[in-house]
């Protein structure tokens, strides 16, 4: 019993260190963290902390320093402490403590309780399902979890003993291996709690962004519940240890912040923070860099189409998130070159038009079949149709371009996938739901905007 308690404590401390590091870096990245809501600060702290720590682990490997908990955590935590002792950090902590002492009571109405209850129900199932069952899902065992186990055993980013898409980026396996170091053992069930945590932070962020965009608390909570309980894909990804949920989290963070910036409602430092999350997308999955690039392309096209004041200068400001994407992409790419790792050419060899035709029907089925994402995508289509010309005259266009552009990109990706005719349906079945998951939280945000346009409510600023 005592041993289990100590293990749990080590896990909580390991997770807490990520929040601590991320929050300290947040004080460096944005002038005033409290310009963001509590959920946003929690989500951004965790995302930035995970990103910084795993890049640090890559740097350790580059310098030939074997992993140990002290080496992984020591220097980043020392940096975090220094940041929080700096004037900006001290001010941020002071403001947090002051706000903690005067926290207003929140009166929830019946709808709030219903939506909150539904979300809690999901996590009452997903959290123990993640933490109490060993890793078993295909990609978790074949790729992410296997690498994490090897990184822990070899005390570094050693991929000489397996062939498991070694060129894939390593945020997820390094994060898992960090938790193994925190736990002092490979405990692949307990370490999986990080996935419901990603999911909870994603939903909290969606709620907070929706509230910031003008939805009432009930509508914002409803939107979060609508994403969580629509189809099986989101729920299953809360406990199967795939890298797709973290990528969806980074995509929502990046898209949300860029949208706020385009709508001139972004807190100061949002663009720098968006740069971090584009970096996270690149470091999270092989599909991350193109996904992040489409965010930038959609933002640039939106600026060029809407032509707001100083739009050319603002186009130039997009170089900040672009730099983030490059910073997230380059270290691993250079490491691959240095280690002479083979990069799979499993996506581009030629164009197969018959696959493109099939991909359209599979994609439509994936979007419409309630088994995958429930009624979220049909609801989005309806909301966009009803939004009408407002879609083209507001920064909503950015989110629509990102989502629509990536749906087209999915079809193109399948059109160049080098699979046999017999294997193609299985190939699509194994990948389509995950590709759509990367976009679905952003689609939910767009749905929220569409609903707001349809049923405008009095302005309600988000609770800090």
């Amino acid at each position, binding site marked *: 019993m005592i041993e289990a308690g100590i293990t749990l404590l080590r896990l909580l401390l390991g997770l807490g260190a990520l929040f601590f590091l991320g929050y300290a870096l947040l004080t460096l990245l944005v002038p005033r963290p409290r310009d963001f809501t509590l959920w946003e600060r929690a989500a951004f702290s965790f995302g930035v902390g995970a990103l910084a720590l795993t890049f640090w682990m890559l740097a350790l490997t580059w310098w030939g320093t074997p992993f140990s908990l002290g080496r992984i955590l020591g220097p980043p935590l020392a940096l975090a402490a220094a940041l929080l002792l700096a004037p900006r950090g001290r001010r941020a902590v002071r403001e947090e403590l002051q706000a903690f002492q005067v926290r207003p009571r929140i009166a929830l109405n019946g709808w709030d309780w219903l939506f909150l209850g539904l979300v809690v129900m999901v996590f009452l199932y997903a959290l123990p399902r993640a933490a109490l069952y060993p890793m078993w899902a*295909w990609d978790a065992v074949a790729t992410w979890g*296997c690498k994490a186990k090897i990184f822990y*055993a070899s005390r570094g980013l050693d991929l000489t003993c*397996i062939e498991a898409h070694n060129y894939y980026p390593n945020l997820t396996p390094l994060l898992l291996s960090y938790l193994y170091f925190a736990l002092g053992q490979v405990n692949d*069930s307990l370490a999986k709690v990080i996935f419901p945590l990603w999911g909870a932070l994603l939903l909290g962020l969606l709620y907070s962004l929706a509230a910031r965009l003008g939805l009432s608390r009930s509508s914002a909570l409803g939107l979060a519940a609508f994403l969580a309980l629509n189809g*099986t894909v989101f729920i299953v990804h809360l406990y199967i240890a795939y890298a797709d949920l973290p990528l969806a989290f980074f995509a929502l963070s990046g898209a949300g912040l860029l949208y706020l910036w385009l709508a001139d409602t972004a807190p100061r430092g949002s663009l720098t923070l968006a740069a971090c999350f584009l970096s996270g997308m690149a470091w999270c999955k092989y599909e991350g860099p193109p996904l992040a690039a489409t965010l930038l392309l959609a933002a640039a096209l939106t600026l060029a189409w809407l032509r707001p004041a100083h739009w050319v200068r603002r186009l130039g400001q997009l170089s900040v998130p672009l730099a983030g994407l490059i910073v997230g992409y380059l270290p691993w790419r250079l490491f691959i070159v240095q280690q002479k790792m083979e990069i799979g050419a499993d996506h581009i060899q030629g164009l197969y038009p018959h696959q493109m035709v099939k991909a359209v029907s599979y994609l439509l089925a994936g979007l419409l079949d309630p088994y995958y994402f*429930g009624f979220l995508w049909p609801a989005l289509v*309806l909301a966009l149709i009803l939004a009408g010309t407002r879609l083209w005259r507001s920064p909503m266009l950015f989110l629509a371009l990102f989502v629509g552009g990536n749906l087209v990109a999915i079809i193109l990706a399948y059109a160049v996938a080098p699979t046999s005719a017999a294997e193609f349906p299985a190939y699509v079945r194994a990948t389509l739901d995950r590709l759509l998951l990367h976009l679905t939280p952003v689609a939910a945000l767009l749905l929220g905007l569409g609903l707001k346009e349809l049923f405008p409510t009095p302005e309600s600023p988000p609770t800090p």
Partner: protein
Amino acid sequence: MTPAKTWRLWLVRLILGLWGIQVLWLIWHFGPEARDLAHRAASGSLGAAIRQEEPLYRWAAALQAIIPESATYVFLDDYAAGKEIEVRYYLAPRRHILLSPDISASFLFYTLHQEHAAFLLIRESQKPLGHGVQAALHSPAFHPVNLPGPGLAFRVDANLLRWGFYD
């Protein structure tokens, strides 16, 4: 309320109604897994205990004690069966090489020799043993490891391997 707004409101209600039905379906869909979770939580058979229920895991766990962490092993199985990735996961960080069960003897022996593989593992399958496996069974370079489980394990003496005469 304008007719257009009423119409939109009905549309939203329709989606919410469908969503409500879908939430009930989700509860039904995840019901069996939730029940399994509850039963396991009540009986305390969780975490590592779940793996112990799997014969493949028990076999791999026994192999962990035999195959040194620095060793290389060749595993014969169909990738699509999904069992090879499990064994690789259990035996990590041991170096893992997957080959098809239908591999020719010459290529199997060549790979074992070239990659300095110290063990050969063959997962049980419905299919008859291939030529390569049959040759291995009759070769003095392969010493069976007596382990009960859903597969065969051999120590490989690479120095005794000869290849090129078996196809």
